[in-house]
């Protein structure tokens, strides 16, 4: 019971923030949540991948740094494609800004629409690409603990629909992770924030000696926000208070209103936009630069490398404008043409105002749905790198009429919260519990193409609804149900999650079979459908064809393929290591032979020279790592006598 999660008793569960621009991994122990960092102390892993022609994949900083040189083989912002169809993405104009090729994946099932990225030798779906990021994080964690990590909690934007959540879970499975829980990002942030404040209150209560005049409560080790310069709001630590989490990430925006009480984190409402994030703010600057270059020089920027360069530049300008009032921009267009310009902070603010307006509209809707007023909110927690932008802070402050809480690192807070949730599942955090809601209404397509809602948005999860279905014609044995998610009145304006087909009904006159279908939304916000025929009380088989997602069989196949791939990679690595070792050991033997060869017994000398030549040949030609390993060991054993003689000779030479 008291065993630490990092001890040998229990299996490690990691928490992963799978972000649009960056991803992080964290874990939880008795002291609280911790980010797992790379050798350079950096927690963030850029969610950027480069696919080399030889099939190798580079993930992270290196891929990001060289994105400008290799625009077509560098994949970024894959999260924006998760769980979405190609046709949808085209209709939304979401592919226009991507320098890498996205195509429609072939499918035998009509109505199915799945996007995939063309990475050269093959097509990879967004879950497969996300799995490569997850695998990198998983390996980072495995190195930290010195053993395999197999279980994870992964965060998603609160406003992700069922298909996007499924895609995230599929990505985990393909990466060889058992995804124990999908947690909403703002909820995870609230968890990290709330435990930090509670930890601080507890620490204070412990530290204050009875009757002592002065205390040092400012230095109490507060979990999650140690060393922060900001003193907590006096109302923030109340044991029953309302907080808002404003999460402006790289590609998505979420706002959640929560009530925190005695360790229970109760989400009252959530709202958001899965197509609004830092990428869009960057693009405002990109568009400005494109337009001005076109006006000034009459050039249309169409080279992917220049496009990627301007994209990086725009991101850099956005970041520079946080501390600075203005940022200088320079683009070398070749042949002596240079575009130069200074962007003032005020100008940037005018460019992004309409995006921030949209986020505030979401905030107002969330407040309405939670039935609370902006003034009731005791604390506003900021999440996502973009919330460092002074303009964003100012607008959020205007709406909630209070300065937002900025003591937490907005890049790390979601991963820390994911680790806390992992701690809850591992039984480490016994006080805390998350009660979340479903972000978008769920329903079915009814006669005439309307959306018949069965579960309304912001309903607490887990939740379930049941609906009775019957047949329309005599002897009908199948019933098809189109399951929808969204707030619009018409089925065509909502997202289709998939066609559920009830099969094997006993042939009866029309309207006689009574099939009771249960739609259960679990704690992850993921839909599970089951059905029984009420007369026979027999479970009816359901065939699910996900409209924009993968079938369980497809996911299993991808998992297997990626496992095979990992084995191949491992073999390749081993071969390289063994070849290097053979080259090194034979070269060393050759040196020693040159030095002390004359002192050896002639038969031994012949034997070792021959063994050396054979091992060299094996190292150059063999593809069998086991045979190479055996030969290398045998040679090393044989060479012991040679090495001893060489040492003696060195000692002789030294005095």
């Amino acid at each position, binding site marked *: 019971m008291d065993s630490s999660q990092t001890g040998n008793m229990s299996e490690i569960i990691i928490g992963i923030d799978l972000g649009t621009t960056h991803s992080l991994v964290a874990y939880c122990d008795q002291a609280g949540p911790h980010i797992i960092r790379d050798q350079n102390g950096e927690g963030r892993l850029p969610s950027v991948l480069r696919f080399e022609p030889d099939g190798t994949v580079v993930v992270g900083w290196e891929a990001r740094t060289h994105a400008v040189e290799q625009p077509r083989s560098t994949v970024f912002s894959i999260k924006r494609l998760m769980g979405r169809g190609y046709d949808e993405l085209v209709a939304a104009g979401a592919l226009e800004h991507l320098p890498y090729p996205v195509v429609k994946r072939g499918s035998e099932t009509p109505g199915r629409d799945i996007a995939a990225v063309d990475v050269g030798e093959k097509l990879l779906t967004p879950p497969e690409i996300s799995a490569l990021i997850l695998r990198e994080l998983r390996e980072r964690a495995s190195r930290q603990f010195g053993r395999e990590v197999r279980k994870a909690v992964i965060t998603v934007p609160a406003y992700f629909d069922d298909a996007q959540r499924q895609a995230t879970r599929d990505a985990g499975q393909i990466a060889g992770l058992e995804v124990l829980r999908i947690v909403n990002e703002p909820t995870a942030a609230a968890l990290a924030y709330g435990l930090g404040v509670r930890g601080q209150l507890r620490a204070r209560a412990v530290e204050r000696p009875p009757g002592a005049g002065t205390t040092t409560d400012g230095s109490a080790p507060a979990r999650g926000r140690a060393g922060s310069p900001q003193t907590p709001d006096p109302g923030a630590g109340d044991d029953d208070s309302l907080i808002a989490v404003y999460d402006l990430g790289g590609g998505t925006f979420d706002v959640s209103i929560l009530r925190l009480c005695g360790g229970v984190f109760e989400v009252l409402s959530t709202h958001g936009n899965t197509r609004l994030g830092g990428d869009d703010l960057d693009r405002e600057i990109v568009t400005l630069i494109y337009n001005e270059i076109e006006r000034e020089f009459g050039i249309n920027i169409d080279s992917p490398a220049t496009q990627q360069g301007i994209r990086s530049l725009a991101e850099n300008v956005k970041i520079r404008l946080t501390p600075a009032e203005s940022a200088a921009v320079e683009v070398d267009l070749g042949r002596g043409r240079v575009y130069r310009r200074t962007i003032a902070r005020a100008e940037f603010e005018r460019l992004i105002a309409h995006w921030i307006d949209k986020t505030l509209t979401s905030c107002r809707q969330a407040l309405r749905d939670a039935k609370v007023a902006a003034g009731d909110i005791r604390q506003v927690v900021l999440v996502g790198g973009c919330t460092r932008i002074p303009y964003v802070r100012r607008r959020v402050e205007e709406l909630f009429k209070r300065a937002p809480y900025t003591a937490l690192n907005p890049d790390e807070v979601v991963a820390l919260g994911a680790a806390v949730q992992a701690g809850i599942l591992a039984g480490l955090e016994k006080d805390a519990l998350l009660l979340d809601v479903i972000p978008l209404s769920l329903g079915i397509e009814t006669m005439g193409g309307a959306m018949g809602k069965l579960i309304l948005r912001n309903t607490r999860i887990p*939740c379930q609804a049941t609906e009775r279905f019957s047949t329309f014609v005599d002897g009908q044995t199948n019933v098809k149900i189109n399951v929808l998610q969204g707030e619009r009145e018409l089925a065509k304006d909502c997202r289709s999650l998939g066609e559920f087909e009830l099969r094997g009904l006993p042939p009866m006159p029309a309207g006689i079979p009574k099939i009771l279908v249960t739609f259960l939304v679990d704690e992850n916000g993921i839909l599970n459908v089951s059905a029984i025929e009420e007369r026979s009380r027999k479970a009816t088989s359901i065939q699910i064809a996900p409209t924009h997602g993968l079938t369980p069989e497809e996911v299993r196949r991808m998992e297997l393929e990626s496992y095979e791939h990992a084995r191949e990679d491992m073999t390749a690595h081993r071969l390289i290591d063994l070849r290097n070792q053979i080259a090194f050991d034979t070269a060393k033997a050759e040196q020693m032979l040159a030095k002390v060869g004359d002192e050896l017994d002639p038969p031994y000398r012949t034997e070792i020279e021959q063994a050396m030549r054979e091992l060299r040949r094996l190292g150059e030609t063999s593809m069998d790592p086991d045979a190479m390993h055996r030969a290398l060991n045998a040679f090393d054993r044989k060479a012991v006598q040679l090495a001893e003689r060489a040492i003696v000779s060195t000692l002789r030479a030294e005095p």
Partner: protein
Amino acid sequence: MATETKTHPVLCTQCRQPMDSPVCCAGCGALNALPPSMFTYFELFGIEQTYDVDPDELRRKYLDLSRSIHPDVAGRNSDQERKQALALSSGLNRAYDTLRNPVSRAEYLLQFAGGPSPADDKTVPGEMLAEVMMLREEIDEAARASDAAALKSIKADVTSRHDEALARITAICHGAGLADPAAQKELRQQLNAIKYWNNLLDQIPTPVET
């Protein structure tokens, strides 16, 4: 699935002690194997069946029970446990959402008393429909003209009508009893009415707050 039948009071299947709430045993922590649909929403919380629900008490019980039955806590060891935790917490969530809202609570009590469902009786009190149509036009007009002052006054008007209907609902639920068909009819009409007022309130665009 469940072979046990419902007893009064419900006994814990593990320790055989009477249970405060049939969702989960306060004594030994065992989850109830019976599906939540076998109990009234009031029984699930172990509270008296009445319109006068103490919201703080209801919330406290809801949070306490959730701590024992949420799948994050109770569903980690086996598929069977997880299924049970999902069934119990989705049942509890529905019961909580129904009971904490005074309108859905009245609707639940009316249904329990065998009164008319919204499908059985769609009527509203007196001249209400004409008023709703008139107000809808006023909203459209004020929204077209972006007349914030007019929208604000319409909102106040609709809110007061909504509150009047809610007051009537409370009075009927407090009155002689929902067994009386006349009381059932009036409650049905007021519940239908409040749906119209809520829809109207949703249609009023919120002007950007300053």
